[in-house]
């Protein structure tokens, strides 16, 4: 098992944890936290591949992660604003109860 495998393994673990949390937790904020974790796991993959990949002089991995961090920040801001406005409307952040879009 090379270091790259280790990093990929950790990333997969983080991704799975984030996914499990996003799928099982009731609170919308924790769901968002889970999604952030998944994003970060992907970022870790990018960095790891950049570091151990065949073309480390190309900074694609790093630049991608930088952009991803910025996009994630925007996503977090908008997501949390959404949660707050949903909370104002429904007086709850429980995603099980916010289901007025059901068919």
């Amino acid at each position, binding site marked *: 098992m090379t270091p790259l495998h280790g990093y990929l393994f950790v990333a997969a673990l983080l991704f799975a944890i984030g996914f499990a949390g996003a799928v099982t937790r009731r609170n919308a904020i924790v769901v968002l936290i889970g999604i952030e974790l998944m994003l970060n796991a992907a970022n870790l993959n990018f960095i790891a591949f950049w570091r151990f990949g065949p073309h480390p002089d190309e900074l694609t991995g790093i630049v991608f992660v930088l952009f991803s961090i910025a996009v994630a920040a925007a996503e977090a801001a908008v997501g949390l604003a959404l949660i707050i406005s949903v909370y104002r409307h429904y007086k709850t952040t429980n995603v*099980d109860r916010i289901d007025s879009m*059901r*068919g």
Partner: protein
Amino acid sequence: MDWIARNLWLIPVLPLVGAGLSAVAPRRQRLFSAGLAIGSMALALVLACCAFGSAVAHVGTAVSRQVINVPWFQLGDGWVRVGWLLDPLTALMLVMVCLVGLLIFVYSVGYMAHDENFTRFFCFLSLFAAAMLGLVIANSLLLFFICWEIVGLTSYLLIGFWYHKPSAAAAAKKAFITTRIGDLAFLIGIVWLYGQSGTLLFYDGGEGFLETPALSSLAGQVSGWGIAVPTGIALLIFCGAVGKSGQVPLHVWLPDAMEGPTPVSALIHAATMVAAGVFLVARVYPLMALAPAGHPGTASALIVITWVGAITAVFAATIAVAQTDIKRILAYSTVSQLGFMMMGLGAGGVAVGMFHLITHAFFKALLFMGAGSVIHGCHEEQDVRCMGGLRRFMPITFATYAIGMMALSGVPLFFSGFWSKDEILHSAREWPITHWPFYLGMIGALLTGFYMTRQMCFVFFGNCRLSLGKTTSSEQRTVAHAGLPAREHPHVELPAEPHESPGTMVLPLVALAFFSVVLGFFGTPAWTWIQSFLEGEHATFNFAGLSKPGVLPVMLTSSIIALAGIGLGYWLYGREPLDSQQLDVLERWWPNLFTLLRRKYYFDEAYEWAFVGLNRWWAQACDWLDRWVWEGVVQLVSGLVIGISWVDRVLDEQVVNRAFDETCEGISGGGRLLSRLQNGRVQNYLRALGIGAAVLALLLIWGCRRS
């Protein structure tokens, strides 16, 4: 080519920038707005003087006409090009427009001082000046037309400046629509011209349509209706001039346009915009004067122009005799003088008409501004019957007004109007076709002297009838404007005495009076400087010009006629003090004729009867047709449709609907089944997403293994 010719576009752009800036200025920035307008106009005047100097310097040389054209946009295969040109005609008009405009701007500062929409006023004025200057320098009929329309728009905006007055709003609409009739013909003319010659540039190094090759090719063409093409185009373009310059029969809007503020009347409806029609004819004069091939002699377009001008000159003068509104008298006088100009253009050529245009611009602006000063001093009184004796209260206004009046009436030797009108009469006398325009012009000149004297007597002489008139008029005003916001000047108290106007209003008057006198000496038969300048020759000082055949007799006759008109007017109105209650002298003598004149030959009523009546008749005819013919057809069709639809319904309900219902129920049942999946819980979706991703990844891995 001089730098000024290359940068001639700056002249209209300066006021345009001023207009744009004051459009965004807040309402309270009065000083900024006025300063901007006057400053930009002054700069434009400086540039115009440079242009004038350049034009003077080039007189008689090969490059007397400096043209710059730039491509504007692509149309079909070619480029539509626009541009500007600098020739004596342009230079003269530029200086005139800038100078008069600047003086009127200064005058407006005083006149509009109390108006709350001061900045808007100056914005419109600047825009007008920009469009007018653009029109003057335009070297393309298209650009000319664009500026022409902007000028019309600003005229509309400024006539309706006090739009809360219903009469002003109506006058603005009337002006706009009436001139549009002429402009439509103008536009058709432009399109026809473009179709025939393929260019709208005036001069383009031999390619423009006013230059010999294009003209000679135009001259040979005859349209389908037997009219020579150049004549047709010229007449259509002339229609535009008729509308803009208030010639019969489209003159009705100009007197009504006096609803606008007086500076507007002076600038737009006396000095510049209405002269644009005359300028248009002067500009395309080679086209107007183009005789169809095979028929040498005077072009038929010019004959029409001369006749229209002559008729307008007399016609408007007769109406002016019977008017009582100080500005309306001047408005009809303007129409009459424009007729003179047209007559001069038709009979004598560019120089004759333009000379009168320039002199008229100065003294008519002077008269209007004097009238504005009178109105201002008399606290918004406009009825001449209610004025009187103002000579004592407003000495400067009186003096300058008298100069303007004498210039307009053609008092001999020392006033510019005499020389320019004399020139026109002389050329009418020389006209080979007929002498009728000359006689009409003589009558017009007589009437001019008469009605101006009448107005002077009413306004400045006699005893002051203002107090009497004021009570009635202020009562009328309170009735008429009850509930409306304060209009021109929010004067609450009415000072007892008329007063002289402030310096910003008096100074332009003096300046204009000066020009009204001096300009005449540039165009005497002895020293035909302006005429020579326009024709691109050097003028020489030569007293022999006076003794040319026909010059002195005409001068003598016109002097006698003018003095006779003035004398007649004084004899009728000036001998004894007038009373605002008593009937007009003429009315006592010929009541019917006087009423006819006072009602402007019932022109408005005739239009009302003719066009509105026609419209009504047409509407009634349509209504009858609709009621009795189409109604039956419609009934028949609808019965048929009802029958068919009954059959259809039976078919529909029994056959189609049942099948459709079955299908729908099936579909909606399926949908209901599927919507169970859509239970609104985001985590379910996420779960499904996860399963899907996992399955896809598995498939991928499996696929990789196999390959």
